């Protein structure tokens, strides 16, 4: 994929990074990630600095706070930002998932109301999709919304809402039609979090983090107009959001993180003498090859996006590949660490002691969130290979 154009854009960005990625931002390095709650305040400060420099949402129209740039420039920004070892921004849900969805399905008034606040880091978003009884089978959700005059009244429970405790708004899938078939009676509502009917609780996860939340709605309210797309037409909207989650520039921070981990693991193997073991050497070489394949998968996907294509079912191949790759890579990290891997508390605010162990544990979640491996395989089987659906 030849990304050698837009030199002026890249030059300006690099100059800006050289001037601004300094002090505590520089010292922090590439902290955080799309599902990582750590160093929140510092990352938010960095995100606001990016916003002030008008580097956020490069391809969004200027009226929504963006630069009015091209998709290629947006991609170049992500590549340069990742290469600079800069802190990862915290507005992932709004910027990478909800924003593009609203851009595609929202009304002009909704876009005007919400998108500039996302770009300016003034409002954070959380996703209300999964429920205790509706994960991979999302359409079986039971959270309901009923119209009461000019407001929706929402009752139910959501789970795995990343950064839900940080959110100002939630984009929530609800049943809005008791009589419709299950895929057709769903709407995406925009719900303010700070109200009596919304209760957010964090869930401690295996890696020690608390970024996942449960959200309880009991008579929560939002304006009747806060529906994305058509009432009862939310399934089409959510498919767009999930497509964004599995494709586009959202893969780049993972890719950059994995590259850094790979480099650190090679250093560690040398330091521990593990690089002298033939089996470890072969696994490291295999991991390196796997990482390159992941990058090529991503290049192919991003190339398609740059040509104006919407991410299709092929994006599942990339998600399935990198999630599995990283899970295996985590096992290699633990093997190279040896006994050191078991040291460090899993309880307490800091989580497991060694960053590689945290990454190893988090890798379990990567094969689950954003569409579990089983769902990705079904998509590839049915929509890429044209195999018949699993018999019911």
């Amino acid at each position, binding site marked *: 994929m030849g990304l050698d154009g837009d030199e002026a854009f890249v030059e300006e960005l690099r100059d800006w990074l050289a001037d601004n990625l300094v002090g505590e931002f520089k010292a922090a390095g590439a902290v955080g990630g799309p599902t990582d709650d750590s160093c929140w305040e510092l990352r938010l400060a960095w995100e606001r600095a990016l916003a002030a420099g008008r580097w956020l949402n490069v391809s969004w129209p200027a009226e929504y706070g963006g630069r009015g740039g091209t998709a290629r420039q947006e991609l170049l920004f992500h590549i340069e930002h990742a290469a600079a070892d800069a802190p990862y921004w915290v507005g992932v849900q709004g910027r990478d998932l909800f924003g593009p969805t609203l851009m595609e399905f929202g009304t002009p008034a909704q876009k005007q109301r919400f998108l500039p606040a996302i770009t300016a880091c003034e409002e954070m978003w959380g996703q209300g999709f999964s429920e205790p009884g509706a994960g991979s089978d999302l359409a079986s959700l039971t959270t309901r919304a009923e119209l009461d005059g000019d407001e929706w009244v929402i009752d139910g429970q959501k789970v795995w809402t990343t950064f839900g405790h940080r959110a100002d708004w939630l984009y929530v899938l609800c049943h809005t039609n008791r009589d419709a078939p299950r895929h057709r009676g769903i709407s995406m509502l925009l719900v303010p979090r700070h109200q009596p009917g919304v209760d957010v609780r964090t869930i*401690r996860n*295996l890696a020690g983090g608390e970024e996942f939340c449960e959200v309880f709605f009991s008579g929560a309210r939002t304006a009747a107009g806060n529906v994305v797309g058509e009432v009862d037409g939310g399934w089409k909207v959510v498919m767009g959001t999930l497509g964004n989650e599995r494709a586009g520039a959202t893969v780049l921070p993972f890719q950059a993180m994995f590259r850094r981990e790979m480099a650190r693991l090679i250093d560690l193997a040398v330091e521990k003498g593990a690089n002298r073991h033939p089996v470890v050497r072969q696994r490291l070489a295999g991991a390196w090859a796997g990482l390159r394949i992941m990058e090529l998968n991503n290049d192919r996907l991003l190339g398609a996006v740059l040509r104006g294509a919407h991410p299709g079912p092929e994006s599942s191949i990339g998600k399935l590949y990198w999630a599995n790759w990283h899970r295996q890579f985590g096992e290699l990290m633990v093997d190279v660490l040896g006994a050191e891997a078991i040291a460090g508390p*899993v309880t307490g605010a800091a989580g497991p002691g060694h960053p590689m162990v945290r990454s190893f544990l988090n890798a379990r*979640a990567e094969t689950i969130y954003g569409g579990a491996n089983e769902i990705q395989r079904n998509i590839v089987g049915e929509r890429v290979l044209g195999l018949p659906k699993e018999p019911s």
Partner: protein
Amino acid sequence: MDFGLTEAQALLRDTAERFVADVCPPERAKEWDEAHHYPEELFCAFAELGWFELAFPASDGGGGGGAMELAILAEALGRASLDVAQCYILTLMGGMFLQRWGTEAQRRSILPALMRGETRLSIGMSEPDAGSDLAALRTYADDKGDCFVVNGQKMWCTGAGLPGTQVLCYVRTDRDAPKHAGLSVLLIDPASPGVEVRRIPTLARHILGTYELFFDDVEVPRSNLIGPLNNGWQLMLSGLELERVLISGGYVGAAQATVDEALAYAKQRHAFGRPIGEFQSITHALADMQTEVDAARLLVQRAAWMYDTDAGSLGRAASMAKLKGSETYVAAARLGMQVLAGHGFATESVMSFRYRESIVAPISGGTSQIQRNAIARTMGLRGY
């Protein structure tokens, strides 16, 4: 070839499984782990059932049980957690070691309290620079006549900080001998002057705890020398194989419980209008895993049978059981995490505890790499 259990063995298994359900179900083991709680009542309950005495000859007040009975117990306790199984196995192995190598006076002074569940023996083998290559250890004990003066450091001493615990320490008593010679075993009380005990923060195994010991001119009475002077390597090898077999029993129990828990969830959790266990991708994965667990169990039972019947060299069979058992537990926990998905990733779940705990299985008690080396040696592939 008889794969069945005797009536007595089946009774022992049933008793142990009921014990786990009543005294230490996995949920409770998880609570103990998270609270770093030392469950004194667990050790006392083991003792009340006579399990610590099971392996000892009747002449020492024991029950005369064999490796098969011990492996059956280890598997049943492993269903609670690996750490719970270790509470039993480590106490038992320490006692068996003393019973074999201790003097009459040492046995009389320590074994009765151990069989009552009041005391334990921890093992001090590994050091910062001596793990898999154990003979490289550098904790020195200088012979001063009526005592030894010990200096050095031990790592990964499981349970060494628990109340009433003494440590069987491998030390170098001859600085000039080749590295496998010149080792001895000393019984050291962690409360002795000059001993510093530090708990190592770990991902799991918080019931027994994992400790570092620092020795600074620690005087150990000569009467605490276990076995012959400078013969420590042989002492270590003597118990290693049985320990591998028993801990592998614990892995099998933990792996089986993990499969059972994933299976129960797969039957109960509905998606797309049916239990997720009806999807072939999950059905086959669970079937494969049950096959793996059965294979691991058979390796453990074969090794236990070989121990009891003195049927050939146990080394290879014990290493195979350890390799297969530990890696099967890891694989079962990984599958369980995928089946339970987000619910497994939340720390409220027992599955997250299984996963966290399983990580140490292929590392402690001889890494998988060490087991492969041992197996390869018996195949004429490695000379070291």
